[in-house]
């Protein structure tokens, strides 16, 4: 199929230069690559810039209310598992007002593909800090800097028992398409954190890894089965060290030819290493803009690509299977048969 088959007739109204344009195109490409017909696809969103996405996709779409996309998508997928269901959400929609639905769709492992657009700001309400804004972040609602600790989305996903987590960057189209396709192919709740730039209210929030000159040094694209090598000259690798005193494992940068360099296994069910990988470089985002941090902090590259991709039973399958099993054995399957089972008397 062609990406154009997934384009709706609506004029795309994201701000010029917004990272959402790129994700929108990546979605159309990924959907074409996956090849599921538009009428078999439902795209559910909440409220926010990213939640406008369904309007630009020629599938079934539902742009709902703030934070509730996850619950509505859960209803669609559970009752109609034959549909492919996407959820479009942002860092505010997903992690603040919709936080409860977000962790529960992950906990239940509903077979949804969730694109969580993280621009670390509320854009549509014109520039308030979000749950992923770094501590001290100055915005219209935090004129003296926030005093809040931000979420690292990956930590929340893994904490809720997530089976799929990928991270991608608006300016990296191939990785984005790969992540979206992998999310669709994964059976279960797939979370794709899309790092997007808000050109109006939070320009450069991902510059640390988005700037072309720095990207190779500051990020690594993880690929299942491949060695974890990065750097402009592909001269660096990642390895695990265990602190002899505390026994705490940590990721360290080693020369690319070091035999300790790890090979990425996204399918490992134990999330320990996935967590270490997903948290790499995230300390840079906790307290300030990454580029403002002193040397020695956040020296690890930010991991992009599919970090975790494990199989587990999905909620929608389990629910439907239970119904099928009960019906298989049931004597009464219609209303009239059901009422016949009642303690009753004739008068």
């Amino acid at each position, binding site marked *: 199929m062609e990406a154009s088959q997934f384009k709706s007739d609506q004029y795309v109204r994201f701000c010029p230069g917004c990272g959402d344009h790129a994700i929108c195109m990546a979605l159309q490409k990924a959907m074409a690559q996956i090849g599921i017909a538009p009428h078999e696809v439902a795209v559910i969103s909440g409220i926010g810039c990213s939640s406008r996405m369904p309007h630009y996709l020629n599938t079934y*779409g*539902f742009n*709902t209310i703030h934070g*509730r996309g996850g*619950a509505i998508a859960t209803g669609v997928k*559970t*009752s109609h598992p034959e549909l492919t269901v996407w959820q479009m959400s942002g860092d505010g929609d997903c992690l603040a007002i919709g936080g409860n639905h977000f962790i529960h769709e992950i906990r239940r492992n509903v077979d949804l593909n969730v694109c969580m657009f993280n621009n670390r700001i509320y854009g549509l309400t014109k520039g308030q800090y979000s749950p992923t804004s770094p501590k001290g972040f100055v915005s219209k609602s935090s004129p003296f800097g926030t005093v809040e600790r931000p979420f690292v989305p990956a930590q929340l996903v893994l904490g809720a028992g997530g089976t799929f987590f990928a991270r991608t960057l608006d300016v990296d189209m191939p990785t984005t398409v790969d992540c979206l396709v992998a999310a669709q192919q994964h059976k279960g709740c797939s979370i794709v954190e899309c790092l997007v730039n808000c050109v109006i209210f939070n320009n450069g929030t991902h510059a640390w890894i988005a700037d072309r000159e720095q990207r190779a040094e500051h990020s690594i694209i993880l690929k299942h089965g491949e060695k974890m090598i990065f750097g402009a000259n592909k001269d660096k690798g990642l390895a695990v060290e265990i602190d002899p005193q505390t026994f705490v494992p940590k990721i360290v940068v080693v020369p690319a030819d070091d035999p300790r360099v790890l090979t990425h296994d996204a399918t490992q069910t134990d999330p320990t290493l996935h967590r270490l990988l997903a948290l790499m470089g995230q300390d840079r985002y906790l307290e300030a803009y990454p580029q403002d941090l002193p040397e020695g902090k956040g020296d690890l590259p930010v991991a992009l690509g599919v970090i975790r991709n494990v199989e587990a039973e999905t909620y929608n399958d389990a629910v439907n299977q239970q119904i099928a099993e009960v*019906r298989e054995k049931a004597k009464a399957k219609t209303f009239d048969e059901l009422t016949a089972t009642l303690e*009753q008397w004739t008068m």
Partner: protein
Amino acid sequence: MKNIVVRFCGDSGDGMQLTGNMFAQLAAEMGHEISTLPDFPAEIRAPQGTLGGVSAFQVELGSEVYTSGDKADVVVAMNAAALKVCALGSHFNHPQAHFDEEFSLFHKHAVVIVDTDSLTDKDLEKAQYHTDNPFTELGLPESVQIVPVALTTLTKEALKESGMDNKSVLKCRNMFALGLIYWLFDEPMEKAIHLLEEKFKKKPALVAPNTKVMVDGYNYGQNLALNVNQIHLSPALSHGEGASSLGGDGRETFTSIAGNKATAWGLIAAAEKAGKKLFLGSYPITPATDILHELAARKDMNVMAVQAEDEIAGVCTAIGAAFAGDLACTSTSGPGLSLKSEAIGLAVMAELPLVVIDVQRGGPSTGLPTKTEQTDLLQALYGRNGECPAVVIAASSSANCFDFAYEACRIALENMTPVILLTDTYLANGTALWRIPKLAELPAITPQSVPEELKGHYNPALRDERGVRYWAYPGMEGYEHRNIGLERDATKGTISTNPENHEQMVLARKKKIEQIANSIPELNVINGKAQGTKDILLVGWGSTEGHLHAAANEIGCDLAHFNYICPLPKNTREVLSQYKRIIVCELNTGQFAAYLRAQFPELKIEQYNEIQGQPFAVERIVKFVQQN
């Protein structure tokens, strides 16, 4: 004797709900009409023997049973606390209170069976008595027939050879009391034993000891010829004689059903009739949870019941299912309805069918979770942002919860709108005699669909001649569209902020709800004894129908009882305007009265209200009308 009211009361661990239910069911099987009222504390197990832990179950049986009864004629009090609460009614906490028939939960001629083994000094202390003679202290008049029975001792005696431990033996006390009541009403023991076997089907080990205790209780009454007269009720419906316009052979089948179960089954029937999958998104909340329980158990009926992470997710998963083409429902109580408001607004805006069941309880906030009230009416009508009309209907008996749940589904599916069905604790937990319908005899349901010729040209703003938008959903090729909670263009269906368009859309949504009046029944006046006179009209809605019907009979006036609230039946003005006095009676401070005044400003509307968490007492309504 015509009708009689029996009240079982004891500690919340004494099994009063089970006992009462078994008695009510047998009574129903014997051809009596029944109406029941479980009345229990919010705590699952309050401290044993205390006033706060008293749990009760009341049933009225006989013929023309409209309510579960104002006051009991027969009482079983399993302990000192239950005796006190029942004797003093709402005044049980007043330090110097004495029996006063106005407040007591039983009549001054009532038969009161008391477990004398549960009146020890310790029991009296826990129930806050100050003397060692509870009967004198409560000031019970001599007309009250106290029947002291050593229930505990007699139960132990009955089971002394059973080898059961003391704790398990004591749990059977309620069956001794039940046996005694069966004797009092001269009920057949074979049927009673059969019923007990049914009730304990899943715990077969308990059948023998409980049967033994129950039969011993019955025999105790018979052998000792207790100093009370047996009660013989004339059955309302006799076996094999019922005249029916519906049943082919003139015989009809009945069962006793609780309101919540009837509600759940109404949804099941509607889904099958409409050819839709039934989806329930819900979150546990008293007193609505039994609807979730019932539907979670009905996987055999292909019901998809999701216990969501919160109230909002309950309604939102349902909205997702509605978007995907299902018959989608959510069940809750008042606090949950508050949480669902925004999402119901989304269903109004997206014009999706959705059934919202609000089993009202005492409010506001957490309020009185286990008590009954009609205080969510205005919330159901208006509690959403924007101009946000939705259909509001109300059930008026435990049995017709079935009919109105079914009707809620019909209206929602045919008109692409949320329908809020109001029931309440009284209906939900109470049971009534229900004539079991066949699916074929239920009204047809024709869910809104989309004409074939719109394939390739469909958008979600397109409406039929009634003003109801066409329904296409994922999986249908050629009808792909984007639905929204934002305002949409009246012709293109896409986002629009155009001022005239918004007004046009607000009016289109309003008109859509108003036209539903064309497909609901007209208001029927229930005539009291004085037919033809147009003097006093009692007006009510929802669960108070039985009480108002009984009150209208006693007063000799008419009753207009509403099940359809928004929109109102088309002849409402015509009916109301014929009366000199219109008295709206409801369990709130006058919400329906206010609604009617707003619709019909020319009418003078009086109101009678109670807000005590309890159903109306017929005698108080009668007194009010006659004295004012």
